[in-house]
């Protein structure tokens, strides 16, 4: 009985992992393509083609929890811009990122999913609903 249970649990795990990875990769393809297009147009000059940024000027998008961590914080950087002195792996970065009012919710979800899963990053997707929710909070504030 115990053995049977183990087998069931194990099969369930295997099936869900396979399904999830299938789902993830099929989802990613279109999103990643659209995200790359947004990245190349609006982000690449400062953050560079490899996402490594420019030393002490434009921060890297690799090896930082600003990109792979809290989704809300990341979405708000795109919506509101960011101009604070923060340390990333011992260095500070001088240039501000402006708000990106030209990008719609879909484009922001796409490009953030793209940077969270490019240049060696691996993090969960950002959905249009998540962007929409943050934008709505922004509008409520006076």
């Amino acid at each position, binding site marked *: 009985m115990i053995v049977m249970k183990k087998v069931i649990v194990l099969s369930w795990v295997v099936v869900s992992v396979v399904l999830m990875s299938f789902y993830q990769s099929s989802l990613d393809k279109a999103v990643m393509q659209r995200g790359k297009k947004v990245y190349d147009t609006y982000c690449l*000059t400062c953050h*560079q083609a*490899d996402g490594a940024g*420019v*030393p002490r000027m*434009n921060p*890297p998008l690799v090896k930082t929890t600003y990109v792979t961590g809290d989704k809300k914080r990341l979405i708000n950087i795109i919506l509101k811009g960011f101009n604070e002195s923060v340390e990333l792996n011992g260095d500070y970065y*001088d240039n501000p990122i402006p708000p990106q009012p*030209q990008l719609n919710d879909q484009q922001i979800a796409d490009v953030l999913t793209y940077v969270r899963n490019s240049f060696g990053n691996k993090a969960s997707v950002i959905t249009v609903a998540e962007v929409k929710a943050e934008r709505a909070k922004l509008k409520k504030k006076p």
Partner: protein
Amino acid sequence: MNKIILFLFVAVSSAMQACANDSTKQIPAAENQLKLAPGFTATVVADKLGRARHIAINSNGDIYVKLERLKDGKGIIRLRDTNGDGVADEQFAFANYAGTGIAISNGYLYASSNSEVYRYKFNAKNEIENPDAPEVIVTGLVDKRQHASKSITLDGKGNIYVNIGAPSNACQEQDRTAGSPGQMPCPILETAGGIWQFKIDQLNQSYADGVRYATGLRNVVGLDWNTSINSLYVTQHGRDQLNTLHPTMYNDAQSAELPAEEFFIVKQGMDFGWPYCYYDPIQKKKVQSPEYGGDGKKEGDCGTKEQPLYAFPAHWGPNALQFYTGTMFPSKYRNGAFIAFHGSWNRAPLKQGGFNVVFLPMKDGKPNGEFEIFADDFVGGEENLSPGKAKHRPCGLAMGTDGSLYVSDDQGGTIWKITYTGK
């Protein structure tokens, strides 16, 4: 089996030992081999110093290196070569502030943080007696992170010249934001975006004690006093992002070539045009910035602004300027200008440029021919990569007492000495 394990252990430990020995001996690594003009040789004086920005050399050969980020809590490193083999064998670190500017004049060492200028007196033995107690000669300069480094040079007649870079790209209401208009007049110019002159022997000078010597300079990192005609010269970092901010006016290729990095002679009262104008090296004139009504062609009153003595390729980042007054190098180098280009980022997605030291021949204080690349291969690998992957980025220049040229690098922390051997 045991023998194999023992053998492996011995092999690994001796390999580790060899590595440890290498790093302490400071043997010039292959990656530090620069490509130089014929007849010149480079020696690695020191390595792994951190963010080595500008450098200055004292009459006894001591090299002072200013660090942009504190290393073990210190912001200046003095390098000394006690056995005359060209490699620094003694390091002494002091100063509790990071920064870029450093210079030596009339028995004093001057150095800057991003908001202050300090000085230290040398005694008769060329030592600084109180390295922890410098005099503050200038204080309270604008430091808003962007373009905050304060480069310095002296005229030998009691004045120090300080670059105060504009904490902005093009003086837009919202910096680097598409559609945001240029502020008219640009309020940044009151306290930045120019060169300020201060007295060397007056303590705690603020803006009110100084003179705005020249204006309309976005960000100058390289500057030097040309003793052959007694005048200040500077190299300006031109504006960024013409295409990302104005995609209907400029494409990627135009944005990579516009505007030029400009080389200027600076006289008191001059206005070089930033943020209202930029220099287009293809049309060979200054045109109005798009944030101020420009369309890439309109001149407006930009013809009244000072024009460059020489236009260098866009976005290369001229971080140091050094006039050559020595006699070691062949005569064509005399009174010409060496310029260290930090290397571009804003040419992306096109191929990056710079990451080199160039020479511009000069006569009577004016360019006399085209520039040539003097030292190259600082990147140490692929040419077209993002600047963070370059092994070295040239940042500072200084002339040795024997007429050699020293180059500093704020990426790998290397200092090179370049000598002429004629071979």
